């Protein structure tokens, strides 16, 4: 009888413990959101700036004190983030999709034994190492090839980011391709299609939503990358004239400026607002991914 009571006490104890574990996750997420909103909105509440100024003005001169009075136009940084990520996507996506097709359709055995591990290793390389290689190899190379004063540029950041997100897009796309049912391939071959025709007309269109998800995931990773970009982008507070100009972006400026900004001051709050913006953008990405997959589900279920 005592043993039984012991058993049940233990059960309740551990049940309680795991529930705490679960609740902790939710609490943690909420806490992060709340803190970010609290600190990030100080620019607008305490210092009275307008959101439009933050998003669209390029006049960035916040006062590093609690008296305020400066300007916090983050447009340069926002544009820097957008342009480097867009360039990275442009470079990485075609190669990623091609690599994924190779891994799954052209040479599946090579794909499993060589490429899958290769992609996983690629993913694990720390971003600072990418940044360091970018700094020591890519930046001087760009400087020499294009005869510039410095090689720091949107191009350098775009290339570094492209290499970083390439494995992400590749592996998600490969998964999407693998989940296209074999019957479609058989039907296509049965109608006299070549392998490339089958891939182009049946497999890729069927895997479309998975490919979009992969692209958004890659974009999200590029957007959130801080140090690798900071090492090669040049930290110039100006809109880039072209792909070869240096500029700055949201993550890099937070990384380099937060240490010096006085706690609670206007500069500090402005940086927090940037962090809040990053947070909201990553939520946006999650939302987009969800709507892609629920549209896909509706398509499949609505049919049957």
């Amino acid at each position, binding site marked *: 009888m005592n043993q039984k009571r012991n058993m049940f006490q233990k059960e309740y104890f551990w*049940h309680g*413990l795991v529930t705490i574990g679960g609740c902790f996750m*939710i609490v943690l997420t909420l806490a992060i959101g709340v803190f970010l909103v609290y600190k990030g909105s100080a620019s607008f509440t305490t210092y009275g700036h307008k959101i439009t100024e933050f998003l669209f003005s390029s006049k960035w001169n916040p006062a590093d004190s609690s008296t305020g009075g400066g300007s916090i136009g983050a447009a340069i940084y926002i544009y820097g983030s957008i342009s480097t990520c867009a360039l990275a996507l442009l470079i990485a996506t075609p190669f990623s999709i091609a690599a994924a097709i190779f891994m799954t359709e052209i040479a599946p055995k090579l794909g499993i034994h060589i490429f899958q591990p290769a992609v996983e290793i690629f993913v694990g390389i720390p971003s600072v190492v990418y940044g360091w290689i970018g700094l020591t190899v890519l930046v001087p190379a760009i400087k020499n090839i294009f005869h510039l004063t410095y090689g720091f540029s949107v191009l350098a950041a775009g290339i570094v980011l492209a290499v970083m997100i390439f494995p992400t897009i590749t592996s998600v796309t490969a998964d999407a391709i693998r989940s296209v049912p074999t019957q479609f391939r058989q039907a296509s071959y049965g109608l006299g299609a070549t392998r*490339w025709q089958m891939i182009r007309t049946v497999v890729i269109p069927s895997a479309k939503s998975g490919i979009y998800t992969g692209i958004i995931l890659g974009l999200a990773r590029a957007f959130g990358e801080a*140090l690798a970009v900071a090492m090669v982008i040049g930290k110039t507070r100006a809109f880039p004239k072209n792909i070869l100009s240096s500029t700055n972006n949201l993550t890099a400026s937070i990384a380099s400026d*937060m240490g010096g900004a006085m706690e609670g001051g206007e500069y500090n709050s402005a940086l927090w607002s940037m*962090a809040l913006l990053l947070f909201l953008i990553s939520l946006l990405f999650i939302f987009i991914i969800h709507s892609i997959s629920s549209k896909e589900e509706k398509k499949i279920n609505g049919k049957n």
Partner: protein
Amino acid sequence: MGKIRSAKIRNAKIADKIMTIVFYCIALLFLMLLLVLALYVVIKGFVDFKLEYLSFNRKGIGNQFFNTLYLVFLSLLISVPLGTLAGIYMSEYAKQGRITKFLRISIETLSSLPSIVVGLFGYLVFIVMTGARWNLMAGALAVSILSIPLITTTTVDAFKSLEVGYKNGSLGLGATHWQTIYHVMLPACFPRIMTGIILAAGRGFGEAAALLYTSGMSTDINWSNWNLSSATCALNPFRPGETLSLLIWASRSEAVSANATQIANLSSAVLMIMVFTFSIGARMLSRRINKKAKGC
């Protein structure tokens, strides 16, 4: 009709062959890129190698290496129990529906946070709000925020892929839910969860942005000092501790020290090797798991 058809088929076959070649080329490019990258980093790291670079003082990376390992160890200490518990809750106890939906959203949100944002949060909560100075523990906590969703997801997946028979068999013998989990399901899931932990550790080694404003960019260890409360004691988790990744970051402006470039190269090489080892380790472990599963 027949002639036109044959011509069209011939064209289609040529296009197919061309595309196959294109795909092989791209695949080769990809492999070469990885190879060149890896080789370059490792070779560059050891080309100007001087033994003193490995030393555990200001001239070498020994301290940072130790800090990296110690920090990841601390973060696993926190994230593994929390992550596994949360994962068990989600797959075994939580009512399927609203609560699991919230959990899933939380996990997704946490895992897509940019690490610099997590670092800022860590800075706010573990440094500013506690009034502390940079310390390893704060960094470990920040890294935990990044690892917990990974370990939770791994745990949930591991439980999901378990044979239903294990659970039912145990419950059918009169065991409680928790006993079933602890004595039957967890041990069965262990290898899979272990793989997730190894992956999380691998990621933790390379983490940098989250540590910028939590564990700090300096390190000062006196290896003969074993007074745990001292700021120069190696094992004191409440001291600042620069990790390998932050050392590389610091070297970006060469004014830091004369050998900054070589040090950064060596650090990059060491980090790469660590990441490779853990990645291959996790792979081998999951292959052994799959073999065992097939064997049964």
